[in-house]
């Protein structure tokens, strides 16, 4: 037997750098806690930020390498650093940088006083980064599970009854999704003898899809698995409860980061299936997209709680963006990333606004944490907060020239250029339906009189800290002046997506 001879250069360890940094950070935080407990949370926040910034720097480096030499493989060709991996990691790390200072609020919240919270958080980021930077189904699975398990715990640490419920629900659904994923991978492996997506595609193509029945079964399993992660209907049932149970920033985070990771994987997986002209895949995806967009919008219309409304609206946005995977052109895939970058600004801003308007105890006569009545007449008591919240709502509704309009416009345009005229119309009309429930909050804030019982409950000034102000300010400026940023983002994203061959 020959000795295995591997040179370090051939491993190309630089491809691992962005994922390893947060994991080292997490271990570091655990070690600090071991030596000296009871340190203030601000230390951990800043440490996490530091590691995230380093992670971001490593990504910039990877982006530079990619634009010079194209797609990089590493570690026995398991790691795959292409444009998709880099852009999605930028989104993941960027959104995390925005998220983590949100825990620095005046009122001490239970979860953030544990150092484990930050360790788990960094582990989760590492997991997601692994998930997007490979086309090996096993590594995807490992990344997905690392991230999800950390996420379940993070939700449960919010430590209200509803958060336990949310965490358990999310865990159960996540376990089911993991099961589906392994079934799907198993069938693909059985068909092709490979667990690398590009190999699977090659073998299936060479075989001319003779086992179409099995391929379809695998596709259904995979779609169900990612359906859970992306909260596509009918796999969405966990989403509103989980959003309601977790803290507002965590809910906002949930609507962005896990989904972009799942989008990237489904983009890798479905791209070749769509282009293989198997009409069934297209039909199934088409139906999923339309139903997710429309039904989530209709459910959002009847919600009485703002957080649940935002949960359903996030589902609808996910359906909207899923259309990119159906259309599967370079323009559509670029639109997906453009949309998600702009969406993360606006949605994190909206959830941060909910976070500062939260109250520690539910006042009498208020059934849920963030119902609409709480916001009535907010413009009288705190006009700036009301205006900023209204701005985020208008942006989510897709009103120009605010951030999300550009994403919507580019996405609809990609549907048109991809030949999906009807889909483009459905997307446009869904935006109109969505307009109603976003408007409802604006109506409450600007056109109703403040109710006396709730006047005391929304006490924004006591919740707001400098870091929160900074983050909301950045989100606001990003939302208003998005039109200046669209061109550079679009050029960057299109170049990277095109260079990765999607």
């Amino acid at each position: 037997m020959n000795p295995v001879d591997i040179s370090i250069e051939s491993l190309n360890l630089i491809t691992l750098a962005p994922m390893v940094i947060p994991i080292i950070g997490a271990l570091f935080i655990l070690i600090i806690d071991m030596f000296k407990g009871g340190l203030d949370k601000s230390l951990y926040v800043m440490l996490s930020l530091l590691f995230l910034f380093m992670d971001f720097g490593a990504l910039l480096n990877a982006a530079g390498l990619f634009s010079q030499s194209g797609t990089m493989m590493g570690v026995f060709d398991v790691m795959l650093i292409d444009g998709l991996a880099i852009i999605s990691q930028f989104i993941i790390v960027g959104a995390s940088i925005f998220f983590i200072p949100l825990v620095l609020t005046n009122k001490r919240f239970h979860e953030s006083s544990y150092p484990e919270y930050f360790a788990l958080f960094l582990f989760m980021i590492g997991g997601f980064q692994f998930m997007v930077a490979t086309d090996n189904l096993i590594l995807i699975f490992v990344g997905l599970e690392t991230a999800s398990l950390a996420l379940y715990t993070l939700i449960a640490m919010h430590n209200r009854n509803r958060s336990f419920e949310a965490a358990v629900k999310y865990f159960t659904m996540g376990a089911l999704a993991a099961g589906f994923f392994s079934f799907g991978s198993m069938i693909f492996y059985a068909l092709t003898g490979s667990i690398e997506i590009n190999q699977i595609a090659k073998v299936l193509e060479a075989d001319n899809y003779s086992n179409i029945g099995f391929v379809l079964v695998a596709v259904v399993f995979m779609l169900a698995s990612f359906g859970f992660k992306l909260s596509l209907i009918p796999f969405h049932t966990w989403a509103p409860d989980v959003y309601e149970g977790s803290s507002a920033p965590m809910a906002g985070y949930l609507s962005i980061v896990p989904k972009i990771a799942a989008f990237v994987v489904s983009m890798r997986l479905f791209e070749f299936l769509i282009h293989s002209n198997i009409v069934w895949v297209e039909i199934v995806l088409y139906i999923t997209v339309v139903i997710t967009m429309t039904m989530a919008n209709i459910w959002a219309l009847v919600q009485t709680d703002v957080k649940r409304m935002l949960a359903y609206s996030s589902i609808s946005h996910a359906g909207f963006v899923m259309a990119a995977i159906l259309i599967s052109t370079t323009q559509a895939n670029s639109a997906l990333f453009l949309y998600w970058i702009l969406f993360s600004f606006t949605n994190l801003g909206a959830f941060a606004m909910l976070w500062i308007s939260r109250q520690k105890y539910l006042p009498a006569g208020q059934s849920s944490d963030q119902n609409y009545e709480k916001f009535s007449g907010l413009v009288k008591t705190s006009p700036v907060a009301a205006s900023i919240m209204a701005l985020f709502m208008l942006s989510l509704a897709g009103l120009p020239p605010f951030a999300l309009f550009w994403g919507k416009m580019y996405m609809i345009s990609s549907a048109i250029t991809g030949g999906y005229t009807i889909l483009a119309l459905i997307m446009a009309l869904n935006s109109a339906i969505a307009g109603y429930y976003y408007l409802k909050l604006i109506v409450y804030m600007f056109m109703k009189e403040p109710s006396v019982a709730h006047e005391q409950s929304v006490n924004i000034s006591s919740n707001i800290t400098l870091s929160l102000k900074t983050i909301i300010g950045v989100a606001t400026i990003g939302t208003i002046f998005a039109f200046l940023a669209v061109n550079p983002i679009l050029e960057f994203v299109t170049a990277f997506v095109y260079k990765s061959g999607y």
Partner: protein
Amino acid sequence: MVDHILSILIFFPAVAAVLGFAVHKDSIRAYGIFIAIIEFALSLWLWFCFDSTVSGMQFMEHLPLVSSFGINYILGVDGISLFIVILASFFTMIGIASLGEMKDIKNMIITLLFLQMTMVGVFVALDAIVFYIFWELSLVPMLYIIGAWGGPLRIYASVKFFLYTFAGSLVMLVGILFMAYFYYQATGVWSFAILDWYRLILPETFQLWLFVAFFIGFAIKVPMFPFHTWLPYAHGQAPTIGSVILAAILLKMGTYAFIRFSLPLFPDASVFFMFPIAILAIIMIIYTAMVAYGQKDIKQVVAYSSVSHMGVIILGTFALNVEGITGSVFLMIAHGVVSGALFFLVGVIYDRRKTKLMSEFGGLASVMPIYATVFGLMLMASVGMPLTINFVGEFLSLLGFYKQSHILTILAGTAIIVGAIYMLTAYKKMFFGEVTKKENKNLPDLNKRELVALLPLVVITLWLGIYPKPVLEPINNSVEPLVQLMHDKAISEEAKKRIPNLSKGVEIIKTPTQEVN
């Protein structure tokens, strides 16, 4: 500075509005009036610098916005848009000047200044996406004005207004993106510039579909029958200033967009849909006139009459010849002045009596003579009396359409007589006879603030009614190349026949060469 006058006109009120947050609420009225006067002076300066003999776009500005997707910040003004811009700044000025005592006046003035930005922006934007941005953005201040200062049903009215227009314009957005895609297919470059699109000749079937997509967006805004149901609510619930701006400027966005987009981009489709739209317009004229006759509320009478006259504008636009389009552009200005003034007048009496029901009044002519005179004059203008501003526009619009169809024009003409009936009846109910209610006996006549708003409108109504040339000529100069462009672009025989060819000389030279071939 004059090179960037359009950008200044757009963003000066917006910047002033942002700074206005810092102004104390007792001084905000003076601040608002001051800003609006400067803005109006700037728009007059624009008119002064405008070369009315030139037919094309003037004061063009060009900045890349999203260059990889062909979106540019392009502005320009021609005879068609010039006067609507002036009208917008004029109405904002007298609107702010005439604001009575109300709650949250600071928010109102800041909102009006933002609204002004969007109004000017819509009329000078020459890039479809920039146009769309301002078009949609104009909904937000109006939503707030109706929803925060309106009547008892204000929330329903404002949300209905918003959603109706929002839904329509999203369909239009799909149309815009399609148009850009066709341009991309034809040239290999993305562009949303309207002047680029003008050069594109589309196959007729595409024209029909795109025409419908744009039509839905525009027709809801105008509002055309059967999409008009949001308007009576919006007018009924809006405060006076909201109704004035809505009727005078915001509705004109729809009719203006027909002339800027639908006609030159889709000439064949415009001819194809000419008669269906004309019939809709005539239904709109007659039906809303009849509805107006049945109203008890004077504001609803004015609102429905406003819709009715928008029908004449549409009819003139779809005459597709120089007389009709020039007339409809002129009528947009006229309608703005007259219906704006009528809503002001209704607001005057509402401020005094807190009711708009005509049965509550009667014999006001003896109590408030100046008010009755101004009201009477505006009413005559609204009906289309010769020597008032509306007459010029209505006459030209109908003359234009008469060339296309005699019967429909006669129908539309009779409908204007119906207009005279309901308007005169309403006037009779309110102003003539004995003073029956004792609350009406001591009503004060127009005060100084109201006169400041109304007198300029009276002057314009008479001045442009007697001597419309200074306005009509620049409009005409810009409409002529538009009609010629449509004729040149038209593919079908029918369209070539319906849209007149203005440069006959060119045709004569062309024909022999074709025969040689």
